[in-house]
């Protein structure tokens, strides 16, 4: 799993991390039972505060995406995979429809952003 953070971006760091885990699950890159590094380990790797990673992991746990085990790191739940499956299918469908219509990716994402408002 690739984690990137950009301190100069407007989103808070914990949100940047949580978004990456959510999208990796939605893309099917992270499957149920996959182990993520412990919060301490990840904080060390990215040289960010431990509480930044803990906040991201706790948000993901509250959403039911992640199971936190003491000393054993974090594990993607089976529910996460199921919950995100319809989203993944919808995105695949959306991508194929917009490709058929010959829409520019920017237009499609603009439409999605508008719909989410």
């Amino acid at each position, binding site marked *: 799993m*690739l*984690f*990137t953070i*950009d*301190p100069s971006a407007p989103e808070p760091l914990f949100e940047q991390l949580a978004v990456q885990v959510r999208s990796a699950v939605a893309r099917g890159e992270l499957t149920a039972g996959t182990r993520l590094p412990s919060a301490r*380990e*990840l904080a060390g790797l*990215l040289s960010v505060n431990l509480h930044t990673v803990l906040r991201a992991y706790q948000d993901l746990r509250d959403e039911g995406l992640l199971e936190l085990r003491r000393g054993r790191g974090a594990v993607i739940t089976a529910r996460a995979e199921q919950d995100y499956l319809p989203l993944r299918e919808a995105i695949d469908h959306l991508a194929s429809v917009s490709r058929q219509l010959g829409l520019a990716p920017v237009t499609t994402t603009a439409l999605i952003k508008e719909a989410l408002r």
Partner: protein
Amino acid sequence: MTSSTGSTPSADPGAPVPHRAVTTLVTLGIPVVVLLAGIAVALSWRDVLPDPIAIHWGSNGANGYGDLTGHLTAMVGVTLAMSSFMWAVGYFAGRDAMTRRLAGGTSAWFAVFMTGELVGSLAPQRGLSDAAEAGPIGAVLAWSLAAACLAGALVAWLTPADLPAPATNPIPADAPKVHLAESGQAAWVRDATVGGARWFLVAVAVAMAAIVAISREWAVVVILVFVFALLVIMLARWTVTVDRTGLTVRPLIRRPRIQVPLSEIIGAEVVTVRPFAEFGGWGLRTGAAGRTGVVLRSGPALQVTRTAGRTFVVTVDDAHTGAALLNTLAARARAPH
């Protein structure tokens, strides 16, 4: 995110092998000294040993006999053959400290094990008129194995590490990379796990259980449990990490840890590994031309070409992302600030 293939980085085959004198001393010197000491002890007992002596044991005690001189000759031959092979590996292919550690450690391990077995099996035969009275050999095997592992680990630990060898060329412009903001930080973490080797472990476990059931000797059980534990550690999950320090690969017990600093990376890429053809098996390995690796399954793997003629490979899923991030971070670390 990643483009597939750039120019393939290749290790410098003409790079000199470092620490050749130490390698010779360790792989040949230590075994010869240990062997000579064992032979001296055995010969000093010549007059009190039965003739023939017991040289082979089954589950019911001694079952093979021979004369002392022949036994010593065979032992010297086998030990020297092993040590010479390990010397050749370290001397000609030991560009990576890991190869030199494996060669020196294995050489010392084997010599101590063989000598321990020799002395330990002869000691209780002193004063016997018939070698058939020699007792069981299990405890001797267990102690020899313990001493051998200690010696091997000590030699591996004392083996000199590689000298720092920072790369002078930039990372090739066409090497696969990931998108990373200028102010961004990135880390890639992935578990490397076994494939078909798990069935090998199951087969070994079944065979060992059968031996334990037949032998019923505590020492044999201890040896088998120890050997199996080592196998499990070698073939259990390894964690592969790419971050601002470079590539780190470590097993469940965190040692031995393999580290490749960003400054020594010539390039990272994805290759296909065949464990038996290229490394002779699974685990922590040295293959042809001193290429080192953590090889747990066949298929795609992350390969790093390093300075001083070294190449390291680890079989891990999503190796594309790992290789691309490694190139990205190495290029950034080398860029003038």
